[in-house]
C-alpha cells in the first residue's frame, strides 16, 4: 500500500514488455476495461436485488489479474480467493457464464452452485474462486506439485489478499514450497485492507509482507500494481524462476479497491478517508494509467478507447440479459455434483446409500 512512495521506474523496456505488439497492448487494455464494465454491471444489478450473498468487487485491481495472467502459457495454472471475477475474465471465461453465476442461474459457470466467490474454469487452468481466507494457498501449492510431478514446465499462480497472510495454512505452504522446490508464486494482492482492518492493524512485519519469504529462504519482490509494465516484468521473472528452476516466489503487488470489502460493506468510507480513495482513483488507477501510456505511445487513440469502452459496456449489458433470461437451476440439481462416481453413474455409485436426506 505504499504505491505513492515507490520510486518511479520504467519497465516498458523489459524484454517481456518490448515483445508486446500494439495489438497485444490494446488487448491488455480491453481486458481490464471488460473486467471493470462487467463488475459495474454486476454492482448495479446486485443493488437491484438480482443476486444473493456477497459481491466482492475487483474494481481498482484489474492490472494484477490481467498483467500476471497475460504471461501464462498452457502449463501455467492459477487459483485465487473469493475476489475472483477479474481472474475469471482474464483467463478467458465469458461474461455470460460469469454473470449468470452471480444471478444463481443454471447457465452459470458453476451452474449457480458457487456464486460470486466460486468461479472455476479448469479448462482454462483456472481453479477458482475460494471463500475461506487462505484456504486456497495449499491448493496452489498442490497445483505446483502436480506440474512438477508430471514433469511439465509450468507454474502455479496463487493469489491472495494482504489479510490472508496471517493464516496458518499459508505459512505451512510457504515452508513446503521452499523445502520441496515447487513452482508456485504467491501473489499477495495488497489493497491495504482486510475488510475494515488496515494492513498495519492486521500484520506485524519488517519492510513488507512479501519479505517474510526470507524466513523460508525464498525469493520475493514488491510490485507497483498500478503499472501494468511493472506487473508483467516482475511476474515474468518469478514465472521463469518457477518454470525453469522449480523455485517459489512471493510477489506483493500493491493495489487498491475502490468499493467496500463486499457490497454489503457500508463502512468503507469510515475506515479510510474519501481523500485516500480519490487519490487512488485519480493518480493510480491502473486502467487510466495504461490508457494514458498507450495514448502517449500512440498505440491507442481516443476513438479506440471509446470503442473499447462501449463494446465492454455492451458486452456486460448483454451478459445481464443472458443471465436474466437464463433458467434457474432445478431443485433436483441440488443433489448432483456431490460425488464424481454418482454423477457418472458408475457401478460403485450403485452400492450402498450415498445420500441421507430424510
Amino acid at each position, binding site marked *: 500500500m505504499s504505491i505513492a512512495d515507490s520510486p518511479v521506474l520504467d519497465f516498458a523496456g523489459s524484454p517481456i514488455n518490448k515483445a508486446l505488439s500494439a495489438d497485444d497492448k490494446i488487448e491488455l487494455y480491453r481486458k481490464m476495461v471488460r473486467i471493470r464494465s462487467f463488475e459495474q454491471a454486476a454492482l448495479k444489478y446486485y443493488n437491484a436485488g438480482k*443476486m*444473493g*450473498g*456477497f459481491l466482492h468487487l475487483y474494481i481498482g485491481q484489474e492490472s494484477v489479474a490481467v498483467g500476471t495472467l497475460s504471461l501464462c502459457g498452457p502449463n501455467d495454472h492459477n487459483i485465487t480467493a473469493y475476489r475472483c471475477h477479474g481472474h475469471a475474465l482474464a483467463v478467458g471465461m465469458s461474461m455470460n457464464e460469469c454473470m449468470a453465476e452471480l444471478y*444463481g*442461474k443454471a447457465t452459470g459457470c*458453476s451452474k*449457480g*452452485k*458457487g*456464486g460470486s*466467490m*466460486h468461479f472455476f474454469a479448469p479448462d482454462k487452468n483456472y481453479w477458482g474462486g*475460494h*471463500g*475461506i*481466507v*487462505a*484456504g486456497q494457498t495449499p491448493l496452489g501449492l498442490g497445483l505446483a506439485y502436480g506440474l512438477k510431478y508430471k514433469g511439465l514446465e509450468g507454474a502455479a499462480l496463487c493469489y491472495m489478499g494482504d*489479510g*490472508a497472510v*496471517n*493464516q*496458518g*495454512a499459508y505459512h505451512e505452504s510457504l515452508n513446503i514450497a521452499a523445502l520441496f522446490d515447487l513452482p508456485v508464486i504467491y501473489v499477495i494482492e495488497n489493497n491495504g485492507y*482486510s*475488510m*475494515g*482492518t488496515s494492513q498495519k*492493524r*492486521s*500484520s506485524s512485519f519488517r519492510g513488507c509482507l512479501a519479505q517474510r519469504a526470507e524466513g523460508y529462504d525464498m525469493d520475493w519482490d514488491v510490485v507497483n500494481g498500478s503499472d501494468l509494465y511493472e506487473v508483467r516484468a516482475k511476474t515474468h521473472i518469478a514465472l521463469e524462476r518457477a518454470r525453469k528452476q522449480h523455485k517459489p516466489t512471493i510477489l506483493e503487488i500493491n493495489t487498491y479497491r475502490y468499493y467496500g470489502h463486499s457490497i454489503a460493506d457500508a*463502512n468503507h468510507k469510515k*475506515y479510510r478517508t474519501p481523500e485516500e480513495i480519490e487519490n487512488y482513483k485519480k493518480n493510480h488507477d491502473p486502467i487510466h494509467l495504461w490508457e494514458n501510456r498507450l495514448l502517449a505511445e500512440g498505440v491507442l487513440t481516443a476513438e479506440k478507447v471509446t470503442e473499447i469502452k462501449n463494446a465492454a459496456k455492451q458486452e456486460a449489458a448483454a451478459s445481464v440479459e443472458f443471465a436474466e433470461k437464463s433458467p*434457474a*437451476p*432445478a*431443485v433436483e*440439481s*441440488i*443433489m448432483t*455434483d*456431490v460425488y464424481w462416481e454418482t454423477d457418472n453413474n458408475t457401478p460403485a455409485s450403485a452400492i450402498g446409500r450415498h*445420500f*441421507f*436426506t*430424510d
Partner: protein
Amino acid sequence: MSRILTYREALREGLDEELARDENVVLMGEEVAQYNGAYKVTEGLWAKWGDKRVVDTPISEAGFIGMGIGASMLGVRPVMELMFWSFHSVAFDQLVNNAACVRYMSGGLINVPIVMRGPANGGNNVGATHCHVPEALFASFPGLKVCAPATPADAKGLIKTAIRDNDPVYVMENVLLYGTTGEVPDPAAGDHLVPLGKADLKRQGSDVSLIAHGRSVLHCLAAAETLQQEHGISAEVLDLRSIRPLDVDAILATVRKTNRVVLVDESKGFGGVSAMVSHLIQDEAFDYLDAPIKRVTTLDAPAIYSPFIEPDQLPNPRRVVEKVLSLR
C-alpha cells in the same frame, strides 16, 4: 416490563451487561471493534468500552482462539466471535482439543471459561464453505457446551449465561435471525438469564411434537399454524435452545404426550442433533411412539448458492407440514 428488541440488539445488550458486570470479560474477533462487527452484533461496544475490552484480531482464528483459551486459564473471560461459525474449520484443534480437553487432561486443575459465538446457518446464499451448522459436531465433544437461541429473549439470556459459565460454551447464532424481533425482559426487572440445558415449549399441542432449535423453531411454529388452520392437527413445538446440556426430560415429556415426533434440524442428513435426539427418544420412550420418528433436515449436499433454490435445500415450513402429514 418488556421491550421489543431485535435478536441482534438482545445479544448486544447481553454482551454489554456482562462487560459491565465483570472486568475480565473481553470481546475479541475479526472486525468486532472498530468496524462494529460484520453483522453489527457488537455495534457501539468498542466506542463504549474501548481497546482493552473489545479487540479486533487479525484473520488468524487458530491464533486468536487459542490465545483466548490460554488467557482464560489465567482468569480472563474471552467472548470470541467467529464472523461465521463455519470458520471453525481453521481453528478446529483449538476448539476441540485445547478448549475441550485441557480440564480433563490436567485432572481438573484447569478450567476454560470461554465463549465462542457467531452465526451458524445456511440460507443467505454464501455457499458451501460458509454454511456449516456445527451444533452436533461440537456437542459430540465432551467438555464443550453448545446452545442455539431462536428468539431475542433466549439470545440475551443464553449469551449471559454462557459468559458466566465456567466451561467453554459455543453459542450458535443465525444471520437470518439477527433482524427478527421479540419481547425481552427489561433489565430493570433484574438479570435476564436463560439456563443451559433447559428447553422451552414454544407452543402447546397434542397430536404431534415438533422438536427443533435455532431458526428451525420458527419454521416449526409457522408449520404448526398451518397444520392447525388447514389440517386440524395440533402440533406442539419444543425449542431445545441448548444442545449440550440437553433437556432430555422435556423431550421425553412431549413425546409421551403426543406419541408422534418430527425433528427439524438444519444439519445435513447424516448425523446432526436430530439423529441423536431420535436415538434418545426411541431408547427412552420406545413404548410411547405410535410411528417412527421422522426428520426434516437440509438436503444432503454441500450448501448451494443459488438464491432460487437454496430455500428448498433447507428445512422450511412447507417441508415440515408435508412431513407431519406423511406420518402414519
